């Protein structure tokens, strides 16, 4: 099987995700980018799992999907609250923890 293609796809997805997390200012888009990163990992896991002919990786991927769903739930709730309080979801404006 052509493992490399999968890995390259995952790497590309991961890079796009990282770019999104670092560069986008919109909170929702950052959350979506995080999903991209997680799914890049999922692709890796499933790909390796398929090559090695075990199911461990797929099980891990399932868990990650479940956790990611929960994480996005929490994340969106935070964005929503942020919007209610500040009328904006621009992440660069949120710097209460500045030292």
């Amino acid at each position, binding site marked *: 099987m052509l493992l490399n293609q999968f890995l390259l796809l995952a790497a590309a997805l991961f890079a796009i995700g*990282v770019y999104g997390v*670092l*560069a986008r200012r919109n909170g929702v888009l950052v959350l979506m980018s995080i999903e991209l990163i997680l799914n890049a990992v999922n692709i890796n896991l499933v790909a390796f799992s398929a090559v090695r002919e075990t199911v461990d990786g797929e099980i891990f991927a399932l868990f990650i999907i479940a956790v990611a769903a929960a994480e996005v739930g929490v994340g969106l709730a935070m964005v929503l609250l942020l919007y209610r309080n500040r009328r904006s979801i621009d*992440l660069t404006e*949120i710097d209460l*923890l*500045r*030292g």
Partner: protein
Amino acid sequence: MTELLTLAASTATGLPLGITEGGSWLLRNAWLIPFLPGLSFVGILFFGKRMPRGGSELGVAFVGLAFVLSLLTAAAWIDHRDNFEGEEVHRAVAVAVAEHGGESAEGHADEGESAEGHVPGHPSLGVHNTVTWFEMNDVAFTVGTLVDGPAVMMLVVVTLVSLLVHVYSTEYVAGDRRYTHFFAFLSLFSASMLLLVVSENTLQLLVSWELVGVCSFVLIGHWWEEKPNSDAALKAFLTNRVGDIGLIIGVAILFFTVGSALPGQFGSFSIAETNALAGTGQLSHTALVVASCCLMAAVMSKSGQFLLHTWLPDAMAGPTPVSALIHAATMVVAGVFMIARMYGVFFEGFSIGGSSINLMALIGGITTLIGACLAFVQRDIKKVLAYSTISQLGYMVMALGVGAWTAALFHLFTHAFFKACLFLGAGSAAHAVHSFDMKSDMGGLRKVMPHTYRTFVIGSIALAGLPPLAGFWSKDEIFVGTGGWGLFGGTGGNGAYTFMLVMGVTTAALTAAYMTRCVYLTFFGEFRGHGTPHESGPRIVVPLWILAGLAIVAGFGNLPKGLPLVPESLQERFGHFVEPVASYFPGISHGTPSWSLATASTLVVLSGIAVAGWYYFVKVEAASKAAGESLTELPDGLTTKYPLARMGHTFLVQKYYLDHLYTDVIAGGTKGPVAAAAYKIDQDVIDGVVNAAGENAVKAGNLVYHRFDQLVVDGIVNNSGRASSGAGGELRKIQTGKVQDYAAILFASAMVLAGVLIVIV
């Protein structure tokens, strides 16, 4: 037939651990006891608000059930200890214990003689019950229970105090806006402590240890709307985190050290295995020393030992029932219990046998002394008791440090009753006058609160340690255990800890004096507060009397060996049932009681009471009459006459400046000048004390030995402050507060690390 458990895997020695999977149903299923309050927590959380009494009935019922179960378990253990049927099991373990005692206890030539209370051939078999939680690298991580003497004793104490506190709280916090929430966490607090007590491995111990910490945080900050309360909760939690790091490191070190001694195994968290291997000398001594020191840090924070004790008085911000629970049963004794549980490790790590000083005994000794000194200058009745707890915990740690294991646990046992009694009594008094301030809002309460007054006095006498109340027996055993009484004749003990004996006896005098002060200020003189206080209701008074009764009789549980007029079957019962005799417990020696020592300590206590009593009941009383109002101290006392005395007093009021050290120097790093303390024994101060004792016993306590030395320390403090301030200034630049900047740093560092990995590999 019962199975004999040996060390895991294919160990060469096949050492029997002295634990069994047999035993009665109750002993095997001790997990039920922590489970019940845990269930109560969940129940109150989900259904409490809908119940007629806001969930408190659920808490009382389940904790009561747990208490009954604990009593049954204790009965089962007493039966098991003497009548367990597995004869060959006993023989095998006895052989192992004898061998192991011979190997490890060099310098204990008198082993056979002194340990005669525990007839070889009939060791105590801890009852072990585990299930595998998960497996990794062929190491099975288990959860389970190890029920033996100390565990059973703790089960009874914790459930009893917790039950009484639950009942008391139904009246004390009645009408509180978070009534249900309060009871939920009270239950979880008890459940966590019970889980800690029965833990079979250090991982489980760590988990329950943290749970206890979280619950204390929630309960101390119960009235978090007021800033000091939430600050106190945070302080308690964060101080405990410092020690928890020690615990985590210590547990990890032990895990791998044990693994190195077990062929074919990666590591082990099992407490019994760890202790047994430490006892046989198969573990590296260095590793044990380091692990003991790390675990000691955890004890220092959890059990309020010197240097990390500062959170404990502040924790008085919580509701009084919580303070009682924290101080008597659930929180602070966790550290002491942990040492008792891992005693094999500490015994070898600190070389307790045959020594005359070690870290644990020293920390305990210092703690007991400084806690007692600080108790003199408090206005808040609960803070007096808090410092008293610190002092008494110091006793326990010191006792463990000198090898008097049974004495330490016995003191824990008796202390739980009288300290819970004192705290609940203080709460009852404060409930009536709506304040904790003894000087401005109390006084004269004995007329209006007869029950609180009587129980409080009983608790105070027990704490001061006058025979025949509980505190006397346990305190005396600790003194005996120091073995440092060349002065008093007698033999035995694990070493010559004369220094510890001196510290202990000094503290006994101080304890008697500050409790006299506390009783006078609260219950005698004229009422200085507002309103008309009246006695509390039955749900407060009944627990008080139960605890006061126990404070009187608990001491008879462990009457010393050789006491005349007492049949031998009633001597040292506590030691017989609680102290494990198994290869997972070190072969400690027992001192023989000494009449002269007991007499001397009683005289010391009486003189403490006499001096403080003379000051308050004679001098202050007379001055009050002359002045026509209820005074709390002499107007022309020592501190107003002598500048040195005033300095000592200020030093104590400032709590040795430790809080300043922590918040200003270490944490803040900028407010240098008055922020540190150094101790210097000053002959002048001692002279002052001698003169002062007659005149002013209270203030005398203030200047014992220490003086704050500003000149020497200032330079160090300022420079360290400047250095940390500079470093902080640089570091804050990267703290932009923007989450994306942090993410960028994260990814960049990950890339660097990945690069390094590629280059190296």
